[in-house]
């Protein structure tokens, strides 16, 4: 019916207005974060707790596991000031939440990527998990590994205290219906990753919690925590629970978007975890091969320069944009730079450099160098909370062990944040007008190319191998504290609801 009576118009207008306000009206004001309900990993990486262990658990008995959870919740670290002695965090896979008894209807409210998990033919192709990174070779999280339900992360100030913490927690989970299916040990916190570069410098600041020196890194809370307005001013989809489910009304906040349901997602975040194996020997050998003098002797200066161009920062962390010609420890923490006006063609920092791909700042469409470009960039940021594993490999030493990074990223929309960065920025050989050049550090091509623009011609390296491969991975959800309490009080009958 195309016609409507004119007398209906005011009522229609009112109804429409209410509907849009409730569901879709973009929210521009910053909101205060309920940091006491958010797990503290969102806000900090625990630089004061250099020792860390990741434990992957499987639920064997749901009722006992809920009992374990009820006690554990009180030990989990929140966004409120942190303990200097330890930190504990807990996250679940989709299967883990179902195993604990989360109603299936609620669980369907999670994002499709989380429900599907990190492993599947399309997703593996999309993330570059092929060849030696194929999940069938993984040591955890793959189709040939035990099912994962939960991730327990333990932090402590010393190895001894970490061991004690681990033992105490192991005692608790193994007594109450859980088994550990895999444990990832990390090496003590170090500034430099295995290729020799300071890592983790550029992190977004969360609006409403962190202070930021400029708008460059200030990102709306809803990009990292569910239940707050995201960079579109909208609420990312969240798993909701019928108010009739026992314990829902007692523990869970109401749905901020206005439905009558309770919000299981609020103050939670998606945690992406990947074990990235670094081939340090291949990295060094390739740099050596590409920079040798014509007489076959080594050229350390050129080698350092090429490595810095591939990364986009010098080993100290000094960015090529502010320190183009040599490393400068004084600029190690520089992070307020942009790309477009300083270096539109990549003469200082190559377009294909790792950090310029992972976070292009103001370099991309629609209008490079403007707020519009930054606005797009803010929709593709992640919080990085990873740790290294394996021992450092001294230059020239015999390689006898595996080493790499336990990559941990937090975000509210896995496909728009983590997966987009991985696929469209890092892996895509055609990123930003490039031609057959995947990320020189983490790229997914076996025969990669890298170009550093120059005059009169670019310096181009071809035949770069993969330096980083994937040895395990999974998508987790790290619920808020109240949501954990709700989980711990689920009864078997909740599942019917």
């Amino acid at each position, binding site marked *: *019916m*195309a016609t*409507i009576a004119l007398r209906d*118009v005011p009522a*229609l*207008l009112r109804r*429409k207005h209410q*509907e*849009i306000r409730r*569901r*879709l009206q*973009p929210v521009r004001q910053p909101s205060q974060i309920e940091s006491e309900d958010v797990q503290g990993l969102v806000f900090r990486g625990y630089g004061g707790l250099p020792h860390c262990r990741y434990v992957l658990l499987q639920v064997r008995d749901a009722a006992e596991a809920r009992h374990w959870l009820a006690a554990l919740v009180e030990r989990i670290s929140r966004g409120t000031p942190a303990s200097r002695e330890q930190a504990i965090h807990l996250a679940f896979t989709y299967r883990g939440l179902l195993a604990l008894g989360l109603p299936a209807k609620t669980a369907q409210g999670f994002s*499709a990527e989380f*429900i*599907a998990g990190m492993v*599947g*033919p*399309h997703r593996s*192709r*999309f993330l570059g998990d092929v060849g030696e990174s194929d999940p069938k070779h993984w040591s955890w999280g793959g189709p040939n590994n035990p099912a994962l339900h939960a991730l327990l992360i333990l932090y402590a100030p010393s190895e001894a205290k970490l061991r004690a913490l681990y033992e105490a927690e192991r005692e608790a989970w193994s007594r109450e219906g859980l088994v550990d299916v895999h444990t990832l040990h990390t090496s003590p916190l170090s500034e430099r990753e295995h290729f020799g570069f300071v890592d983790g410098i550029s992190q977004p600041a969360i609006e409403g919690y962190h202070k930021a020196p400029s708008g460059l890194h200030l990102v709306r809370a809803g990009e990292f925590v569910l239940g707050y307005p995201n960079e*579109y001013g*909208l609420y*990312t*989809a969240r798993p909701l629970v019928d108010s009739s489910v026992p314990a829902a009304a007692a523990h869970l906040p109401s749905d901020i978007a206005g439905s009558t349901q309770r919000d299981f997602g609020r103050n939670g975040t998606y945690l992406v975890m990947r074990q990235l194996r670094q081939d340090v020997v291949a990295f060094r050998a390739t740099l050596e091969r590409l920079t040798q003098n014509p007489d076959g002797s080594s050229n350390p200066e050129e080698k350092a320069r090429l490595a810095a161009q591939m990364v986009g920062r010098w080993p100290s962390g000094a960015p090529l944009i502010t320190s183009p010609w040599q490393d400068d420890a004084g600029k190690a923490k520089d992070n307020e730079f942009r790309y477009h006006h300083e270096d539109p*063609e990549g003469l200082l920092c190559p377009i294909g450099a790792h950090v310029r791909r992972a976070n292009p700042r103001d370099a991309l*469409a*629609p209008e490079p160098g403007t707020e519009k470009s930054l*606005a*797009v960039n803010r*929709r593709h940021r992640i919080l990085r909370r990873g740790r290294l594993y394996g021992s450092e490999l001294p230059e020239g030493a015999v390689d006898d062990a595996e080493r790499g990074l336990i990559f941990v990223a937090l975000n509210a929309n896995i*496909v*728009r944040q983590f*997966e*987009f960065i991985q*696929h*469209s920025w890092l892996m*895509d050989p*055609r990123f930003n*007008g490039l*031609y*057959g050049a995947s990320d020189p550090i983490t790229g997914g091509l076996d025969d990669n190319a890298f170009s550093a*623009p120059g*005059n*009169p*011609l*670019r310096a*181009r390296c*071809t035949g770069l191998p993969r330096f980083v491969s994937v040895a395990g991975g999974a998508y987790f959800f790290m619920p808020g504290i109240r949501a954990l309490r709700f989980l711990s009080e689920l009864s078997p009958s909740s599942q019917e609801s």
Partner: protein
Amino acid sequence: MAHQEALTVVCPVDATKADALQACLEGMRPDPGHNATLPFGLLPGCHFGRLLILPATQDLQGQTLDAHLVMLIDCDGSAQDMLEKLVATAGAGIDAVFGHCRDYPRSPAGAAERLAYLQGHRAPTPANYVHRPGRTVEQIRNEAKLRDALQAFVDANDFSSSTAQDVRRRILDFVAREASLQWALQPPPSIGIARRALDLVDLVARPLGVVAFGPVVLPAAALLMLLVRLQEMRDRSEHLRPSPEHVRRLSELEDFVAHNGFTAAGLVKRGWVRQAVLATVLPLIGWGTRHLFTRDSLAGVKSIHFARWIPLEGGRRVVFASNYDGSLESYNNDFIDLVSWGLNLVFSNGEGYPPTRWLLFGGATYEQEFKDFLRRHQLPTTVWYSAYPHLSAVNIERNAKLRAGLQGEMSEEEAQRWLRLL
């Protein structure tokens, strides 16, 4: 050089043969370019080709809309010529595919009958976007070869103490010496005079028509807008998510090469108002894509090679088909960030679209609701062919600039900038 046209063929599927047709298409899927049935790769001037089934459904009045076999080709030159090439090349392959359609001749005597059938089922394409009108398949492929040759040439020589102009001169010498590259020294041929004349007529005639009938057209448009606004206030949409099974079927076809084929179909909202909007908007977009968005960008989106909007079944369904670079997620993000108004203009006439205001605002800016709407309406593009699967639209554009730089004189600075294309 030829302009590009969109060939659209839509045929009703015999319901008893629908499964067999799907199986037939699945059989072609692994090798869309050179399969034995309908080898798109053997059709000179075919940029992109696809075959898919538009499933049967019920329209909003509860009437059944039949399943249709849809064949789309983006080609150099006229679509009619392409159809003839197709019939000549595929021969009995046409029977193997279109024989699943209700009204296909029982045992076609030969080429003439096949051609007549396909001609009879051509659907008009009122709005068609071409990334760069005039750029042929041959040109795109040749210019990619030119790039490879120049890369290899500069890699094989030491230019460390040369000026950019020196390097360019050496490159020009190299191209002039190589018999296989000499074509590149000529600029690409421009679009034929006849086509340009037609373009010019179209460019002027349509606005003139609006002006001539201005006293009627403008108040009518204003009235239409008002009616749309009233409907928008009454329209209800619900944020529904696509089923995991649907997403799996779609994604198993995606992200193998530089670009993907996207096909979606939706029901048009009830009533004449939306029909009138589409009858206005689609030719308007058609005019815009033909005359305004002709230089490597659809209103700011540089990742689309071809796109078209096809109204079907008396305007009750609309099909949108495109060839885009990168992932669906980045394609969607471009839509939302750059041209939400353009999408709203057409898609908001579709049932279930996120709420819009004044046809242009809202809609696609509701990120997740919009992405889920598109995904839910997307169809598996079962057979999809690209003539240059490793090239993005930006790659193609840069290769063309590289070739154009072989012309004329350059200052040192211009030569430096040109060399950065390598």
